[in-house]
Every structure is written in structure tokens, then in C-alpha cells.
């Protein structure tokens, strides 16, 4: 049984970490980009961002004034039990979100879409989102918070099998260029692409590809992994850099996730996780241990399974 107080306390720490500490994988990626960048203005921007991450950590202040829209991805082992059950868990995550909004402080971004009511705590109808995943073994809970920023850089399109890879490339370039101009997408970013599923799941796949996979990670399907490499290079060959200035770096990495779709279609979504790639993760064990990390490790063999039954021995044999 995992203590609900420990979950709330851990969640509050995660809110703080996500807002303030740039994850190491993204930081390394941006440092590599800064080394290759030769556009005057885009170089200046990348250097300023590197200084900014340092200032945020030193001062313990949010790295960006737009602290995004906090959300939770929760993953549990098959044997995990939470004190008070799922209702208590959701209440604890909502409390942690509200407390940290005031405590860090974060920007109270969340408002009612029509009445613009602001509770000043990032909690409201459907906010924060809480999404769930499960794994076959274990008695732990993974708390993952992502505070994705930005109103730009995300798009969806219904493509068809006849559009092929060249159609996918076209929409990818359209999305990068449209939202890269003037730096609306806050690039260079981790770009997530969702392919297939239905319209909603396609968006979910692309968003998770951007937010729940780290720089350097590759899809286990070697052909998709090759596409990820190709798309990263393609994005960086546009000639556009940070803020839409002339430069070489738009894409810190490109992650692609797929889901089975309608036989007639080929849904595609593109998501840009901005220069402040806010994500933080903790695993809380039944014995009270808490381990912090920045890799969500969301996309496991189990999450990507394509069979009816789950046969762990199959995964072990691979």
C-alpha cells in the first residue's frame, strides 16, 4: 500500500523540478546544437537559453514565465495499491498542482475557455489532465508531470495511404515552417510525430512521442528509427533556427510513435515540445522509497504490444 501523503509530497516536488530544472538529455542536445550553430542571432539565442537554465537552477525560479499546462501521466504496476484508491490519488495530484502553482510560483495558466474564469491554481474542469498506463509487474507508481508550453507548433492532418512517406514529409515540413517562423514553436525542440490511431489517439501518440521520450531514444522498429534520424536531419536542413532566425537547428530530436489505424487512412500529428521541455518523474515504491529521474520510460514493450495476450516470455526472448 502506497501512502497518499507520500504521493502528494512527491508530486509537489515534481512540479517544482519540472518548472525549474531542464532535463539533462535535452540540455545535452541543446548544447550540441549550440556548438554547430553559426547564425549570429540564433547563436545568441541558444547561448541565452543555456544561461537561462543555469539562472533558473541557481535561483530556484521557473525557467520560463509561461510555465505551461501541468498534467500528469501515472503508471502503475499490476500489483500496486494506493491508500484511498484512485479517487484519493486524483485528489492528491490536484492538490499538488494547486499548491505548487502558488509555491514555486507557476503561472496560473488554466482558465475556463468561455468565461475565462481563473482559479489561480491551474486546477479546473479537466485540469490537470491525468492519464494512466499499467505495466505487468511491480508494486510501484510512476508519477510523471509534463508542463507542455505553447499554443503553437502542433497540428493534425488526415493523410491517406496514397500520400506515402513523401506526404508525411510534406506535412512535417509544413508544420515546422509554419510555426517555426518568428519562433512561435519555441524551437529548437523535441518534435513528436504520431502516425495512425484515430484522430484523438493520433494526437495523443504524437504528444507522448514529444513529451515522454528523451533525446537520443529510438523507436524499436528499425525502419521507424531510421525515419526518426532522417526527419531530424530534414528539419535541421530547413535553414531556420531559434526564433525563426537563419540557422541550422530546429529539431533537437524527432520521435515517432505509431498506432493501428483505419485501413483507408494514415492519420498524422506533429507536436513541438519547446525550449523549456518541462518533465519530471518519480517512482514511489510500496516500501516508501522514492526515486527521481527525468526519463518517463513510458513506451515499453507492453505499451507498444500488438498481440491479444501479453506473453512476457516473448518480450524476454527478444
Amino acid at each position, binding site marked *: 500500500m502506497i501512502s497518499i501523503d507520500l504521493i502528494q509530497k512527491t508530486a509537489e516536488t515534481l512540479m517544482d523540478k519540472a518548472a525549474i530544472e531542464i532535463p539533462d538529455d535535452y540540455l545535452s542536445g541543446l548544447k550540441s546544437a549550440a556548438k554547430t550553430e553559426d547564425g549570429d542571432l540564433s547563436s545568441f539565442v541558444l547561448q541565452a537559453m543555456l544561461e537561462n537554465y543555469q539562472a533558473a537552477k541557481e535561483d530556484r525560479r521557473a525557467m520560463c514565465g509561461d510555465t505551461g499546462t501541468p498534467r500528469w501521466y501515472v503508471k502503475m504496476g499490476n500489483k500496486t495499491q494506493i491508500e484511498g484508491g484512485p479517487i484519493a490519488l486524483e485528489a492528491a495530484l490536484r492538490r499538488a498542482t494547486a499548491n505548487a502553482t502558488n509555491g514555486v510560483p507557476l503561472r496560473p495558466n488554466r482558465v475556463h475557455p468561455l468565461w475565462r474564469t481563473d482559479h489561480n491554481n491551474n486546477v479546473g474542469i479537466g485540469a490537470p489532465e491525468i492519464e494512466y498506463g499499467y505495466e505487468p509487474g511491480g508494486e510501484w507508481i510512476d508519477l510523471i508531470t509534463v508542463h507542455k508550453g505553447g499554443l503553437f507548433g502542433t497540428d493534425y492532418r488526415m493523410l491517406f495511404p496514397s500520400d506515402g512517406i513523401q506526404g508525411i514529409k510534406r506535412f512535417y515540413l509544413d508544420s515546422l515552417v509554419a510555426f517555426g517562423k518568428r519562433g512561435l514553436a519555441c524551437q529548437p525542440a523535441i518534435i513528436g510525430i504520431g502516425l495512425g490511431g484515430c484522430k484523438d489517439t493520433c494526437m495523443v501518440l504524437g504528444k507522448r512521442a514529444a513529451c515522454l521520450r528523451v533525446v537520443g531514444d529510438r523507436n524499436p522498429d528499425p525502419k521507424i528509427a531510421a525515419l526518426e534520424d532522417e526527419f531530424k536531419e530534414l528539419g535541421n536542413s530547413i535553414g531556420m533556427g531559434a526564433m525563426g532566425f537563419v540557422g541550422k537547428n530546429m529539431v533537437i530530436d524527432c520521435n515517432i510513435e505509431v498506432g493501428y489505424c483505419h485501413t483507408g487512412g494514415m492519420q498524422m500529428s506533429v507536436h513541438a515540445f*519547446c525550449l523549456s521541455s518541462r518533465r519530471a518523474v518519480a517512482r514511489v515504491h510500496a516500501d516508501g522509497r522514492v526515486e527521481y529521474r527525468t526519463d518517463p520510460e513510458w513506451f515499453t514493450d507492453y505499451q507498444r504490444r500488438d498481440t491479444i495476450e501479453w506473453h512476457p516470455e516473448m518480450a524476454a526472448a527478444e
Partner: protein
Amino acid sequence: MKVREVRLSTTPTPEAIADLRLGDIVYLDGLLYTAREGVYMRALEEQANIPMELPSQSAANFHCSPAAAIREDGSFDMGAVTATASFRFAKWLPEWIAKTGAKLIIGKGGMSSRDYKEYFVPNGAVYLSTVGYGTGALLGRGIEKVEAVHWQDELGLAQAMWVIRCNRMGPFIVASDMEGNCLFERENAKIVQNLDRVYEGTRPAVLKRYGETDDRSDEVIG
């Protein structure tokens, strides 16, 4: 080419404005205030009295919602500040600039050269862009003091009018000049020359979107 750094008052002289060049890096001293759609609607559409003396106290309008909280004792805790995209405010800006004498519009992404020529230049105003985006922690370090917050009950913390005393707050980038030139459009024009090569071999989608264009010099704003 190395970038040029400039320190600028938030109540700048016409000479100081005229001296700014596209791409200059600016650090600000003095009072600035945040105002975006909430403030514009309240001041311009609902005709509420603006709770500051403008432009004598400040001629610098920041398109910003800070990551900030008001403590129980009434004090302010402002951590990071960055800008929000400005193009959405073109509806109110001409009237706002005329009414308040704003000389520095500070935000994200700039406006179009048409906006600059139509109502920035005639009012002696320029656009400063935040950097990144966004260098929230660096800009936060430039806050000497939060002087006041207005209309937080009516508009909420994110849309309220925050009055900030800055000390070498920056960096910002000069994104327009007194001829109405636009830094972002200048960069777009260079980049678009390369786009046909990058797109080579790709295919337009079989299902069109109504109103879609393949003109790659287009922008999604304005």
C-alpha cells in the same frame, strides 16, 4: 558580426528609439507594465480608468503573464517572466499606443511590417522581442521590485496589470525600427529561398484543406 548591446530606459527619448537597429540586444531600466487582451478589453472596450499615469510613469507595455503569486501579507512573489505572442493583440494596439503613448511594445514574435508602418512608426514606437523563447529566469533576475498589481480581482493573476521596476532587465531583441522594417520578415525572406530545395520530392496531400495555400512566403500570423 557581433550583436550590439544597448541599455534603454522604459521612458525612452525619441533619439534613443531612433538609434535602435534591427537585431540590437536591449536591457531595460525603469518601470514597465504588463497588458494583454484582458487589460486592453477593460481599458478600451469597457472604458475603465487606467490605474497608472501613462506614459510619464512608463512607456513600455510587456505582453506578459508572469509566473507570480500574491502572498497572504500582500507581498508579491514573481519568479519568471516571459512574453506571449503579440500578433493576437493587433486589434487593440493602435488605440492602446495612441491612448497611452507607449513607445516600447515588448512581446513574442513581433508584428507585421504593415503594423509597424501604420501605427508604430507614426507614434515613435518600436517592438522589442523577448529571446528564446523564453529566458524567463534571466528576465526574472532583472526585476528589482514588483511595484503594484492592478485589476487582479477583475482579470485574474495571469491577465492582471503588473507594474515592475526593472534593473538591466533583458535580453530583448529589437525587432522593428523607425522605417517600419521587421526583423522576422527579413529573416523569413532569407529562409524562403531555401525552401523549394528542402521540399523537393514531397507531395501535397490528396485531401486538401479549404483555403490552403502552398505559398511558402506566407505566415500564419496577420
